[in-house]
C-alpha cells in the first residue's frame, strides 16, 4: 500500500457544492460543527441561489457552502477553496472561479454524463478542460452508484437513496480532514429519531464514504490542520441571524421587559423571525405581519404599550418601513430596526451580500428624521450590537437601525458564550412621577423623554406623528418646530457618550489607514494582518457606530497620511465621512458583485495606494 501523503496546513477552505436539492448546506454545516468541536477556529459562508428549485442540474440551481478552518484565528471563509466537492458538472462550472490554483476537486463521476454536461452548458465532454482546470488534482468518485450499492439491502426507493448522496461526500471529506464521525452520527440520530430507517441508511452511507477514503488513500493527500489557540471558555457555533435574535433576547431580559418582534419574511433576514418564534419559552411575542409596514407598525404599537419592540427586514423592506420609522422618530419611542442587507436596488440579489443600504438607513425618510445607526462586524458580534441597539433605544427613547448583511447573517463562527450578567446594564426611561409627567419633557443630559404606557395610572397622554409641544399638544408654531427638529438631532448626537472610542488595529499612526464598517471586518483585518507581516505600514480602523460616529474619529484620521475606505457599495460611507469629517482625502475600494471582498483584491488596492 502506498503511503498517504499528509499535508500540514495553517488553514484550509473547503467548498461543498451541488444542486440546491442535494443537501449541500446541511453537509457544510455538519462538517463545520464537527470541525469547531475539534477546536479549530472556523468561518463559514453559504452561497445559495435565490430560487429554491431552479431547474435541476443547471448552473442557476447550484448551492454552495464554504468553510475555512485553521489553527490560528480565522476571520473569513477564505477567498478561494483548497478543496471543491462537486456533485454535478454545473457545480464545477459555478465554482471554478472560487478555486485556489491547484486545489483539489472531488466530484461525483456518475453525474458527469452527457445529459448533465448539456444541462450545465458544456460544449464538449471535457468540462475541466473547458474551465482551464486540467492541471488541478481531481478525485473522481462514483458517489451515486456507491450510495446505491451501500443501500441496496435497505429496501428504499431510488429517490430516497439518492437523497443520502451528500452523506457519502461528507464521510469522504471527514476522512480527508481527520474529522471523527461521532458528532455527525449523533446529529443524524437525533434529527431523524422518529425514522429509524433514515438514521440507519444515512449513517451507513456516511461511514461508507469515510471508509472509501481510507481504502483509496493512495489517490489523495490528507490534510492536517491543528486545533487553534483560542481563549479558555465555553464555545458554540453561531451565525449572525441567530446571534442577532439572541442579543435582542438578552437585552429584553436585562431590561426586565417583554420582547415583541413584528416582522414579515424576507431573505436573508427571515431566520431572525424564525429564531425568535422558537422562543415562546422565554415569553417572546412574534407577530408575522401581513406586510413590511404592518411589521414595523405593530412593533411601534408594542413600543407604545411598553415592550422592547423590534422589526427585522432586508433592504426593500426597509424602504417600505420608511414612513413608520419617521413616526417612531416623531413619537420618540424606543424601537430597534434590524436590516440584514442584500444586493439592491429593487429585488436585486436577494441571497447575496452588499452594504448598499447605509445611506437609506441614515437618510431614507421624509423630513429631518435622525436615527441612531449601528453595524455589526462579525457573525457573533451581531449579538453584542443587537444588545447595544436595544440599550440605546430604551435608554434614549429613539429608533435605532442595526445594519448587518447576508454574509454575517448566514455566516457562522465559534463564539465564546458570554453570561447575561456581564453585559452592560439597561435602564429603560420609565416615567415615575405622574404629577410631573409631560410626554415631551426631557432629561437635561440625554434629551430623552420619559416612557409611560397604557395601564400606568395617572400618566394618560396622547402622542402621534404631528409636531407637538412639551405637553403633547399639536403645535404648528414655527419656532417650536425649529427647536424640536434640532432637539431630535441633538438627542441622537448625545448617544456618543455610549459609543466607545474608535480603535486602531496596527500602529497608532502611519502611511495608510484602512477604514471599513460592518460585515467586511473579517476580510479587512486579514488583509491588514497579511500586509503588516509583509512589512507594510498599514493599520485598520473599523466602525460599528455610524451615527453618531465615535468622538475620536477625526483625531484618529489625522494621524495617517492616506485613508482608504473599503466597502461593498459605490462609496456610501466614504461620502458620509466627506460630509461629517471633511478635510481628509478619502481613497476608496468598492465592490458590488454580491460577494464579500477577497483578501487578495484588497491587498492589491492597498498596495497600489502605498506605491502611488
Amino acid at each position: 500500500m502506498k503511503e498517504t501523503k499528509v499535508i500540514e496546513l495553517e488553514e484550509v477552505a473547503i467548498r461543498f457544492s451541488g444542486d440546491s436539492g442535494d443537501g449541500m448546506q446541511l453537509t457544510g454545516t455538519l462538517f463545520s460543527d464537527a470541525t469547531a468541536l475539534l477546536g479549530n477556529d472556523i468561518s463559514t459562508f453559504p452561497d445559495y441561489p435565490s430560487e429554491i428549485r431552479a431547474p435541476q442540474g443547471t448552473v442557476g440551481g447550484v448551492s454552495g457552502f464554504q468553510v475555512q478552518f485553521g489553527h490560528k484565528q480565522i476571520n473569513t471563509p477564505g477567498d478561494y477553496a483548497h478543496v471543491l466537492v462537486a456533485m454535478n458538472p454545473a457545480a464545477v462550472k459555478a465554482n471554478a472561479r472560487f478555486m485556489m490554483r491547484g486545489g483539489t476537486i472531488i466530484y461525483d463521476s456518475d453525474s458527469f454524463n452527457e445529459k448533465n454536461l448539456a444541462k450545465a452548458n458544456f460544449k464538449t465532454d471535457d468540462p475541466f478542460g473547458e474551465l482551464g482546470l486540467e492541471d488541478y488534482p481531481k478525485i473522481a468518485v462514483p458517489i451515486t452508484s456507491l450510495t446505491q450499492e451501500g443501500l441496496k439491502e435497505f429496501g428504499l426507493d431510488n429517490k430516497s437513496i439518492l437523497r443520502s448522496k451528500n452523506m457519502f461526500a461528507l464521510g469522504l471529506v471527514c476522512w480527508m480532514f481527520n474529522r471523527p464521525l461521532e458528532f455527525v452520527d449523533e446529529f443524524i440520530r437525533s434529527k431523524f429519531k422518529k425514522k429509524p430507517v433514515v438514521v440507519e441508511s444515512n449513517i451507513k452511507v456516511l461511514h461508507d464514504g469515510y471508509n472509501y477514503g481510507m481504502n483509496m488513500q493512495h489517490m489523495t493527500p490528507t490534510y492536517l490542520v491543528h486545533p487553534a489557540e483560542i481563549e479558555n471558555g465555553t464555545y458554540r457555533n453561531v451565525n449572525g441571524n441567530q446571534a442577532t435574535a439572541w442579543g435582542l433576547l438578552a437585552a429584553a431580559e436585562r431590561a426586565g421587559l417583554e420582547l415583541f418582534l413584528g416582522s414579515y419574511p424576507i431573505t436573508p433576514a427571515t431566520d431572525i423571525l424564525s429564531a425568535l418564534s422558537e422562543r415562546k419559552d422565554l415569553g417572546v411575542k412574534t407577530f408575522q405581519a401581513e406586510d413590511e409596514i404592518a411589521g414595523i407598525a405593530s412593533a411601534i404599537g408594542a413600543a407604545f404599550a411598553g415592550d422592547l419592540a423590534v422589526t427585522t427586514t432586508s433592504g426593500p423592506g426597509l424602504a417600505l418601513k420608511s414612513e413608520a420609522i419617521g413616526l417612531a422618530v416623531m413619537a420618540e419611542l424606543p424601537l430597534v430596526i434590524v436590516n440584514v442587507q442584500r444586493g439592491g436596488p429593487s429585488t436585486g440579489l436577494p441571497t447575496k451580500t452588499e452594504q448598499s443600504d447605509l445611506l437609506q438607513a441614515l437618510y431614507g425618510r421624509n423630513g429631518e428624521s435622525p436615527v441612531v445607526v449601528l453595524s455589526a462586524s462579525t457573525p457573533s458580534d451581531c449579538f453584542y450590537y443587537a444588545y447595544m441597539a436595544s440599550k440605546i433605544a430604551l435608554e434614549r427613547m429613539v429608533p435605532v437601525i442595526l445594519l448587518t448583511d447576508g454574509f454575517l447573517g448566514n455566516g457562522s463562527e465559534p463564539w465564546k458564550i458570554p453570561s447575561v450578567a456581564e453585559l452592560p446594564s439597561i435602564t429603560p426611561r420609565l416615567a415615575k412621577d405622574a404629577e410631573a409627567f409631560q410626554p415631551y419633557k426631557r432629561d437635561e443630559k440625554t434629551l430623552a423623554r420619559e416612557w409611560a404606557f397604557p395601564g400606568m395610572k395617572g400618566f394618560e397622554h396622547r402622542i402621534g406623528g404631528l409636531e407637538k409641544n412639551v405637553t403633547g399638544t399639536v403645535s404648528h408654531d414655527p419656532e417650536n418646530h425649529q427647536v424640536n427638529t434640532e432637539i431630535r438631532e441633538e438627542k441622537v448626537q448625545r448617544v456618543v457618550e455610549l459609543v466607545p472610542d474608535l480603535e486602531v488595529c496596527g500602529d497608532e499612526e502611519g502611511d495608510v489607514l484602512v477604514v471599513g464598517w460592518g460585515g467586511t471586518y473579517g476580510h479587512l483585518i486579514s488583509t491588514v494582518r497579511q500586509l503588516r507581516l509583509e512589512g507594510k505600514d498599514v493599520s485598520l480602523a473599523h466602525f460599528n457606530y455610524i451615527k453618531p460616529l465615535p468622538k475620536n474619529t477625526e483625531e484618529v484620521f489625522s494621524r495617517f497620511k492616506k485613508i482608504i475606505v473599503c466597502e461593498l457599495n459605490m462609496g456610501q460611507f466614504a461620502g458620509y465621512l466627506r460630509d461629517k469629517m471633511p478635510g481628509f482625502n478619502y481613497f476608496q475600494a468598492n465592490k458590488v458583485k454580491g460577494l464579500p471582498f477577497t483578501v487578495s483584491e484588497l491587498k492589491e488596492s492597498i498596495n497600489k495606494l502605498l506605491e502611488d
Partner: protein
Amino acid sequence: MTDLKYTIKDFKSENEIRWCAGCGDFAIINAVQRAMAGLGIPREKFAVISGIGCSSRFPYYMSTYGFHTIHGRATAVASGVKAANPELSVWVMTGDGDSMAIGGNHFIHLIRRNFDMNVVVFNNRIYGLTKGQYSPTSERGFVSKTSPFGTVEDPFVPGQLVIGARGTFFGRSIDGNLKLSQSVLEGAAAHKGTSVVEVLQNCVIFNNGIHAAITDPNHRADRQLILEHGKPMLFGEENDKGLIFDKGKLKVVKIGENGVKESDILVHDACEEDPTLHLALINMKLPDFPVAFGVIRSVSAPVYDVEMEAQIEEVQQTCKIKNVDQLLRSGNTWEVTGNENGKGSDPKCQ
C-alpha cells in the same frame, strides 16, 4: 372594577375640538365617551389608536392613552398594542379612506386574526381632510374634485369586507342616532374578537347630505331597519313591514298583505355562524330595502391575543430553557481549557 363611577366628562381631554361645526364626528365621540364611561374599565386601560384623516384626530380629544399614527396603519399599530398588553381595551378610530384604501390590507388581516379590539369606521364616503376627493366607498359615478366626470369604479361595502375577511362582529350605526351608536359600541366592547362598527357619518363641508335619504325624518322609519338579536326584523311607520327569506333572497313584506303574519317575519340571529343572512342584511340598500342598523353579526371564534398568551403559557409549563444564559448554553457547546493566549470572543485588533 364595577365600582368605577365615570361620567362622559372623565373621557374628555382639555384639547379644543377642531372638527367643522356641524360635523358628524361630534356625535360619534359623544357616543364613544358615553359607552366607555359605562364599561367599568379603568381609564388608564383604554388605548385609542387612529390613522390619518378627520376622524383620526379623535385621540387628541380623549383623556385616555391615545396614539395618532400614520395613514392606514392604525389597525396594525393597534395589533402591536394589544399583543404587547392584552389587558388593554383597544379602540381604533378610522375613516373609509384610512381603513379601506391605504389601510385595506391591515384592515382585512386584523379581522382575519380576530384580535380583541374595536374598530370604528367613520364612513362619510369622501376624503374630507384633503378637501373632497372620492373615496373607496363613493358610489359609481360620484362627482368630486378628482372625478369631475364621475367615477368609473364601484365602491366597497364595509360589511362585505368584514364578512369576506371572516369577521366575527359587524355593527352599523349613524352619527345622528346617539342612542343606537352607544348601544352598538357597547355591543362591540362586550364582544371578544375584532368588532367593526361602521358609523354613517355626514361631512358637512364636502359631502353634506350623503346619507340624507336614510336619515330623512319623514321617511326614516321606512328606510331604517334597526336589528336586535332575537327580535323580528320589523320596520316602518306602523312597524308593520318586515323581511322574509324567499327563494334564497330577502324580501320586504307587509303584515296583513297576501296573508303575511308576524310569525312569518325573520327573527334576527346575530350569533348565527353562517354569514349568509348577515351578508344579505349588510347588502340591503334603498330604494328596494331599508338599510340595516344595529349589531348585524356577533359570533364567537378564537381570539388572537388570547391564543398567543395561551401558547406561551403552554410552552413555558414544560420548557427546559428558563432564561437567556440557559439558551446560549443549549445545543452543541464545547470547552476550551489550557490556552493562555489566543483570541477572545471579540477579536478586534490583534
